[in-house]
């Protein structure tokens, strides 16, 4: 919800969504293509663009970047510690029940590259998510001829998430004000009621929504007009330049 509200209020809201999508995707491809240095450069680049150009508070951005850490650290550990046959390549090794577990230099290398790559790709995605509203992304996908059934589902789901969250909040508050969450036992019971009434509500709402759409002449396709955006050549040149610089530096540093 936090990301969503920034996507409508950031300073790059009025930039053509295709430009933002292009920037994020091209940079992401570079992250996969090249190694550690490129990834570090991308992490810094995305931080600078998101915080200084789009004016997302640095505190918020860093907090968001910390979210993937818990997953990341677990997967990194499993990459670093391996079952090894040959003790001589290991930096540290441990013998448990006849199995040798150890850390090798190769393992550490892979782990570092993976760690940086994940952070770099995530920062590209955050840039896109924080600067581009879902509605705009859907409009771009429509122009790319993605099947309309998929996009209409996406559109309705996105809108209804907020309706449903609001309903869930209302139910929660009304339960909480009657001590519905005072004890553990109460909490389980209340949560059960909350979930089941949400299901019923969403079923009923979906029927009402259909009636409301039909009343406005719905005939199986959600036809709407998107917002008008203008391409900015300055931005496009900027994107091309940045990508070229990234590519050339990466080529030079490639081992």
């Amino acid at each position: 919800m936090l990301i969503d509200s920034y996507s409508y209020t950031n300073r790059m809201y009025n930039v053509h969504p295709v430009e933002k999508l292009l920037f994020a995707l091209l940079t992401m491809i570079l992250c996969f293509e090249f190694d550690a240095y490129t990834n570090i450069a991308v992490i810094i680049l995305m931080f600078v663009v998101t915080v200084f150009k789009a004016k997302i508070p640095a505190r918020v951005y860093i907090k968001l970047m910390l979210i993937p850490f818990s997953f990341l650290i677990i997967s990194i550990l499993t990459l670093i510690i391996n079952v090894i046959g040959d003790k001589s390549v290991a930096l540290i090794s441990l013998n448990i029940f006849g199995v040798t577990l150890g850390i090798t230099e190769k393992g550490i290398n892979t782990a570092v590259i993976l760690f940086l790559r994940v952070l770099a790709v995530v920062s590209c995605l955050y840039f896109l998510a924080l600067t581009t509203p879902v509605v705009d992304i859907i409009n771009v996908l429509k122009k790319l001829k993605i099947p309309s059934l998929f996009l209409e589902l996406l559109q309705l789901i996105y809108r209804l998430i907020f309706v449903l969250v609001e309903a869930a909040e209302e139910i929660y508050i009304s339960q909480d004000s009657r001590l519905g969450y005072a004890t553990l036992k109460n909490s389980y019971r209340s949560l059960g009621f909350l979930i089941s009434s949400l299901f019923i509500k969403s079923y009923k709402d979906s029927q009402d929504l259909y009636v409301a759409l039909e009343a406005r002449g719905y005939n199986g396709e959600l036809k709407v007009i998107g917002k008008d955006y203008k391409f900015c050549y300055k931005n496009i040149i900027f994107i091309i330049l940045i990508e070229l610089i990234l590519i050339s530096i990466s080529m030079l540093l490639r081992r």
Partner: protein
Amino acid sequence: MKKQFILEAIDVTFEYSDGTKALDGVNISIEKGKKTAVLGPNGVGKTTLFLHFNGILKPKSGKILYNGEEIKYNRTELTKLRKNVGIVFQNPDIQLFSASVYQEISFGPMNLGYPENIVKEKVEKAMKQMRIIDLKDKPTHFLSYGQKKSVSIADIIAMEPEVIILDEPTVYLDPKHVQEIMGLFDKLAEEEKTIILSTHDVDFAYSWADYIYVMRKGKVVAKGEPAVVFTNEKELDWSDLRKPMLLEIYEILKEKGIMNGSNIPKNIEELKKCIK
């Protein structure tokens, strides 16, 4: 001059699939260009009736007439009917399906098959009329209830229907919004649009409507001009409604003999003029 009825329900009966009788021999005639209020407590079939006027529901028996012709339930005829009869639903959260205000309002005109530049014109015009131009780039879920309501009305105005039906438009709205919406309805009425709304706010209905229908348990139990309906004590008792405050005051003042003129006042200004 002969009265021209734009929408008529003749002996309409409707049953939901679970067997509840929602409408039971309803007869209603809506005069063109007038403001009609349908009064009644919750669950008396007001919404069901409205869905008939727009061809969403088909009566079990009886018929619905638009401009004197019975409506036909095929695709092209229904599209035509829905262009001319728009419904603003009670809960804007259900009516608004799009996360973008602009897209939301463009949905109706797009369905009518207009080219994009004309749709844009209609959307802008509707937003201007509802005074929501500043919401153009806002996502739907950032709006307050009153703003959502305005967008849901703009949804329908953008389709430029002959008849605008509003299901409980004043519920949950603050007095300022109600005032604004009332002003808007008056403006639409000046443009010869027919407005039908349901409400249980008798004070609102009394001073706003040209004609009132009172419903109870799927039946029309009283109809007529507001002053006539609300002065008929017997029928009022029957329909769980109270008398409008203004009328009540007028009657007390009349009893005390401090009232001028014989016209029953419709609003505070008229009442003031009546007092000696």
